[in-house]
């Protein structure tokens, strides 16, 4: 019986060891994308990406709240859902409401409740428009609030929560400066934060400066990331854009211009791989380009994306068992094709 006892003990020890190792690992992340166009309509490539990347969630821009006439908040740009849109069953749709910080600057006292009601009504309409009167599991608020607007914004969040069903999770986007200066800006009263790990660089005409993601600039904000008193998910950038430069300064941002289209234009001449000089005055996606302007394309390479993902993994808090959501901004064919699905999968796997 002696060897059997030894075997049992050995197996038990091994089991313990394995368990101990798994307890130290982070669970695999939940995969997500942001969808940020005004018409919700998935192309075949986008559908495939959702499937092949095992995407659990889609953060859908629902509408914006901006300062309207008479400086009152106004809901604009409500997303239009294409009729008969085939939404994958296993993908949870999380509506995102973007609130311009300005609306809270001079907001009327006690106006937060009225705004919350307005927002809630519109969200209810969106639920119906998604065809199945979906009950959202989560709602996300996107606002770059400041120390001056924190109280009003937080009051709005509380008012919105009071209107929502008890089980509805609320999350809010958190920007790096809000992590770093949390004592000033406060922590919103939500269940989870979505760390926007991008736009920490500077808009500049210099080739070395990068506005979408800059690892060096990011480092300045990472020190306190793991102690932020809110569980954090993470959003990483996969979009690209083009800066319009004039006399060395940034005069415009062509958000809807894919850098990949620049070499094909017959009114620009390449200076480098990323810089193009405008050779005649004309229009591009509604923006007037003056002859002599320089278009500076900014894209994040796959290596940069990996680096961003790694930085996050090294610096985010290690929760015991909560599954972190990693979201890529944003779901669009051109972004998917720029990286390829394997690179994006690797990004998802890197952040835990």
């Amino acid at each position, binding site marked *: 019986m002696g060897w059997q006892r030894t075997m049992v003990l050995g197996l038990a020890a091994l089991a313990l060891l394995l368990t101990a190792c798994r307890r130290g690992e982070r669970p695999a992340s939940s995969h997500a994308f942001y969808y940020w*166009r*005004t018409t919700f309509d998935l192309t075949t490539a986008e559908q495939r990406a959702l499937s092949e990347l095992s995407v659990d969630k889609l953060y859908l*821009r629902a509408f914006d709240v901006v300062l309207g006439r008479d400086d009152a908040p106004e809901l604009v740009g409500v997303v239009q859902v294409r009729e008969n849109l085939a939404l994958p069953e296993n993908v949870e749709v999380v509506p995102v409401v973007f609130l311009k910080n300005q609306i809270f600057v001079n907001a009327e006292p006690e106006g937060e409740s009225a705004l919350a009601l307005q927002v809630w009504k519109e969200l209810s309409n969106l639920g119906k428009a998604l065809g199945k009167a979906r009950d959202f599991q989560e709602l996300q608020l*996107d606002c770059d609030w400041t120390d001056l607007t924190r109280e009003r914004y937080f009051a709005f969040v509380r008012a919105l929560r009071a209107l929502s069903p008890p089980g509805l999770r609320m999350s809010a986007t958190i920007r790096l400066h809000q992590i770093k200066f949390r004592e000033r800006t406060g922590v919103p009263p939500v269940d989870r934060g979505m760390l926007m790990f991008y736009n920490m660089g500077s808009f500049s005409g210099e080739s070395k400066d990068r506005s979408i993601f800059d690892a060096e600039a990011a480092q300045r904000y990472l020190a306190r990331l793991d102690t932020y008193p809110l569980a954090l998910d993470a959003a990483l950038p996969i979009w690209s854009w083009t800066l319009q430069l004039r006399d060395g*300064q940034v005069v415009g941002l062509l958000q*809807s211009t894919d850098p990949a289209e620049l070499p094909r234009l017959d009114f620009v001449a390449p200076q480098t791989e990323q810089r193009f000089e405008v050779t005649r*005055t004309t*229009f591009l*996606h509604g923006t*007037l380009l003056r002859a002599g302007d320089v278009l500076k394309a900014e894209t994040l390479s796959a290596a940069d994306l990996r680096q961003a993902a790694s930085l996050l993994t090294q610096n985010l808090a290690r929760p015991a068992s909560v599954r972190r959501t990693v979201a890529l901004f944003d779901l669009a064919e051109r972004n998917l094709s720029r990286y390829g699905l394997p690179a994006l999968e690797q990004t998802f796997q890197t952040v835990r």
Partner: protein
Amino acid sequence: MAFLPWSRRFKRFASGPVLLLAALVVGGDGQPQAQACGYTEPSMSELSTFDPAVAGEPVDLGLQYDVNTTGVGDRCAECERRSMREDWRGYFDGLLNDADWEEALLRANAADLSALEASVASGQAPVRLRPLFVTVQRQPTLKLRLLRALSYVKIAREAEAVANLSNATSPAERQRLQVPLQKAAAAAVARRDPFLAQRYSFLRLRVTFYQRRWQEVEQMVASLPELNRPSLDLAWRSRHYLAGALRRTGKLAAANLELARIHAGSKLLAGIAAADFQPQEDADWRATLQQAGDPQTRALLWRMVGLKFDGLAAAQEIFKLEPTSKLLALLIVRELTRSEASDNLPDPTKLDAALEKLVLAIAATPGADRPWLMDLVGGHLAAKRGDVTAARDRLQRALSARPDDQRLRNQARASLSMALAHRGKTDPASLKELAELMLAQDPQFPNLGVVNRQVRGLLASAVARKGGKIDAEFLAPGTSSVPESSWQDPMFLQRMLARTKQQRTAFDRFVLASNHTRESLELELGLHRLFHNQLASAQQQLAGQTAGTLELNADPFVTRIKDCFDCDFGSRRSDGKAWTLHELTVSLNSLQTRANRDGDAAARASLALGTALYNLTLLGSARSIAKYTHQATYDTSAALYWYRRAYALARDRELKAQAAYLAAKAERGTLFAKRPPSTRPNEDLPLPSTWFPLVKTFADTAYHRQVLAECGTYRTWFARQPSR
């Protein structure tokens, strides 16, 4: 992180015509939009150094406007009503009073209109429309015209109700108007009534547009000549609907071309056309230019680009197309003023350089439009670089071309002044020329304030570099190299005063045309002396001076336990008159004589001195006189000196208690004054640690009881003290 989709720019495309036409037919009270209260946007003359009106362009075309801001896309409701009024006046041959007809056109309800129609036969008109009815009765030739006009108004009201893209209006409601409108238009054409034929056809066009039958709108505009006259306003509005339809069928190039033509042809619609004008891609833009057909129309298109997007680029393109174009002047002048007024241009000097190159090229072109204006602009741009030679040369050419143009002369004078100031020379001849130019400037020159500030500022820097700090301070008060601490130096104040006496040369006079006047400087010196207890000097200095006659806003001898500015505001002497500053110094000197003696009387005199000096500080009730001077202070040291003396002299306990408490207030003021200004919140005054304990020793006095009752700060402190 939301990125606003560019497509949102199109959202208000059709809203403009709706609003405009609502006013035309049934809407609007014609009142201008209410202005937001409390803040007015500065005008261009307050922001730039170039008077755009010198170009002679009609200002309402927008020499100064930005098409994306309020004031351009906005309606001119009165302009629309005037246009409409003129149309109808023509229809009625001036036989109907405008106001009477407008009562029917704009304000009468459906029942009244029907009643008026019936009344023309029956003689029973609704009361509010009676004047109209009476006029028609007197002039039977009007009767038929009025009946036809009333029929039009009734159906126009119905059309207005469906003239929207809202899904709340059913297609059937819109459709049912088509037949009667078509019939009415045809009938008007048949009887050779172009006025109503146009109006009915226009209503049909509108209804068709709001039925989203875009192709039909295009066809109607092409095939219905009655849309084009007699009212030009309606003709252009028809084309605006055409532009909208073209856009909605993807014919962006044609739509933008139409909008450019509308902008050029219709003042009423210029703003909305500019707002709606939006090329998207190189392809549609090139198509628009190609469809334009001729250089003049292409120039119109570029002008739209210039007004809305980029004036310099547009001007450069227009110059290539048509070097003598009349469209260049407005764009150039606008860019010139914009480069100064805008605070978000990447590098205004680069814009100026490009503009300068362009205007020189235009000026050198045979047959150019307003070459004198290009010379003037060129001279102004050279002036901004400090190139006096080039500026002088070009400005002189402009003046020679138009010697009787006063606006031009004023601008040239201003520009040359700027050239000299930018050059920065301080030799006597340069200073003399500059001063003479500025002193000769027409006070009506609209940009005088900005030019003056700029010239004085540049000159201040130049003279300061040569050691002329006093002149620099006169030229640019507060912005020169004189540190704020200089204002506490009586020698500096006396040098400033002495400068005011030197008025011999033009430069002297220009320097002294400053916010620093003899009076203000006398006030500074007088207050300085008072706050430093130099009472005799203050009295002597202010005697016979204007500063001495300035009145205090309150009786400075009123003393309170708890300061109350509002309570004492306007308080006067016992004879009912306000204290003047000189009178105060006389009184203070008299008190000083008594205070320098002994006993309670001296103590009372000391208290009064302390109170007056306390009340002149920013903590006191008579602070208004010093508030806007460099002597304004929280420092109550001068008052504390006298309160201390009062305490030392007083024998009566109540009097001593009062002196102690007032000294405590003054002590607090001195502590507060020592804090940096940025750390001074309103209510948080430090505790007087020396004098509060002394006040406490008078706890047995009635005055102390009063202090406890009125002064919360002391009461709180007192409550925390350990009891014996």
